[in-house]
């Protein structure tokens, strides 16, 4: 705005009441609104970064679950192999029993070996079936946890999109506020200068009118953006609440997995005991074969020893896989717990931000205050225009 020039014919006229006051108020409110806008932008930026961290944590979780799944699959495989070995043991036991029955009284030791071997094979078969069922249960629990986690990832992404949108709206609002602040500052300076006795020209009046019109547009823009930011924040908060609920579900699933794993551990402990007894049995079979005259017994004893080694290996492998699966699951659970806590914190911060935003949009807040000042400015500008017209009328000869 150019500095008003002095016209020799003009006479000093009073600045309309309230114009200076409104100018000062508009300036102060513009500054406050800009500060609050920057604060909202900053908080939204923090919220987005926190959600991004949560998304990263979320992306790491399925890897840990995949590890647990792999271990469960290996346990299932061991259970299947153990089941096959148990079937072979059963057949061997039956052969030993038939052989012992054929030989009658003279091979009672062998008959006992056959009976023991058959009982052990029965026990191993039951254990293998139970272990297989547990491993299958473990796999379906892992799958359920993975699904719950995937659902959470989608909700987090949705929350991030809402927050980003809110940030863009807030940035736009910030731009608008800063323009408004500039206009308010100029208006304040102009009215202040006139109050000090400076003369007004046509340019002042036009500028005041333009300011009043711009104020109306900005008022609408800022209100619309404020409503949009609030709406997006509300939706982001809802998505985050849902994600927190999903994360709770994941944690619950992982808890179930851990309980499941404890059952598997008990069963593998029993397999350990079976392996120990198989070894003992193989030694007995060796002894019986050494006493027996039929060379076929040596074959039985050898097969019993092979089976006992198999049982021992399977139990040892089972222990290793279990330890790994337990580690993987513990890591997953810790991750899920941290993730749930982080999401809850983000959700609560978003809710707080929304509350502050809602509070700022009501009553005596800078945005509303600025809009109201502009509305008043329009009145003041009209007064100024009227005063100017009246002055000209009076100054005109015969007016």
């Amino acid at each position, binding site marked *: 705005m150019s500095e008003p020039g002095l016209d020799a014919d003009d006479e000093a006229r009073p600045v309309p009441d309230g114009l200076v006051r409104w100018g000062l108020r508009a300036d102060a409110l513009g500054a406050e609104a800009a500060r609050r806008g920057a604060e909202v932008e900053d908080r939204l930026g923090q919220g987005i970064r926190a959600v991004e961290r949560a998304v990263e944590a979320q992306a790491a979780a399925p890897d840990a679950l995949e590890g647990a799944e792999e271990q469960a699959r290996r346990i299932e495989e061991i259970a299947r192999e153990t089941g096959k070995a148990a*079937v072979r043991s059963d*057949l061997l036991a*039956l*052969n030993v*029993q*038939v052989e012992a*029955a*054929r030989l*009658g009284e003279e091979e009672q030791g062998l008959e006992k070996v056959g009976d023991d071997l*058959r009982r052990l094979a029965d026990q191993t078969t039951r254990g293998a079936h139970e272990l297989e069922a547990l491993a299958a249960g473990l796999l379906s629990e892992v799958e359920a946890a993975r699904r719950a986690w995937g659902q959470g990832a989608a909700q987090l992404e949705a929350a991030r999109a809402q927050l980003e949108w809110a940030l863009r709206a807030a940035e736009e609002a910030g731009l608008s506020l800063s323009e408004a602040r500039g206009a308010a500052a100029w208006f304040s300076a102009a009215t202040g200068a006139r109050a000090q006795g400076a003369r007004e020209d046509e340019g002042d009046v036009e500028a005041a009118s333009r300011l009043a019109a711009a104020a109306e547009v900005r008022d609408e823009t800022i209100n619309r953006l404020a409503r949009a930011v609030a709406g997006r924040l509300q939706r982001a908060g809802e998505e985050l609440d849902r994600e927190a609920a999903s994360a709770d579900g994941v944690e619950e699933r992982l808890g179930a997995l851990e309980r499941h794993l404890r059952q598997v551990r008990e069963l593998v402990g029993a397999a350990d005991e079976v392996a120990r007894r198989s070894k003992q049995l193989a030694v007995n079979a060796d002894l019986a074969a050494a006493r027996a005259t039929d060379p076929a017994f040596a074959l039985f004893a050898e097969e019993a020893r092979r089976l006992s080694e198999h049982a021992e290996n399977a139990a040892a492998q089972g222990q290793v896989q279990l330890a790994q699966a337990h580690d993987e699951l513990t890591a997953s659970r810790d991750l899920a717990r941290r993730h749930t806590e982080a999401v809850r914190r983000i959700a609560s911060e978003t809710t707080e931000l929304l509350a502050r935003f809602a509070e700022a949009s009501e009553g005596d807040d800078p945005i509303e205050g600025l809009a109201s000042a502009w509305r008043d400015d329009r009145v003041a500008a009209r007064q100024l225009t009227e005063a100017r017209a009246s002055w000209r009328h009076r100054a005109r000869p015969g007016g």
Partner: protein
Amino acid sequence: MQDSLKVLRVRAGGRDFALDVGVVRAIERPAHRVRLPGAPPYVRGVVEVRGQAVAVVDLAARLGLTAQGGADPAVVVVDSLEPVGLSVEALGDVAAVAPESLVDLGPRGHAAGLRARAPDGTVVLEVEPLVDGRPLEPAAAVLDGGGEREGRPEGPDEERP
């Protein structure tokens, strides 16, 4: 009191049978079986048992019973002039039976390959007629007291899964 008879219990055609352990040489679950073209329909092929080729007879088909299929099929190798495998639907256990408790099934039973009936209903088989290739009387007629005939021994081959 006579010495107890030790038997191996098996299941074929949905019924319980027993084989004297004195004739049982081995019990196997062979992984591979080779078909024998031109053999009687109840001969399911040849398997390898401890390095020896053994012909396998489907016990249910040989007795003229309808094969039921089993979760735990196996081959019981019995001693004859040559070892022969009897394919069964499931294996039971080795049990002792008091000979005086057995009810002889008479010439008609023997002609069907059935020796005697134990108190629990298990039928002790006569192995030699089962493996010598001669025609047999249908077992169902004897087992059910001349009732419904389930099939003909040595009848059309029924493929098992």
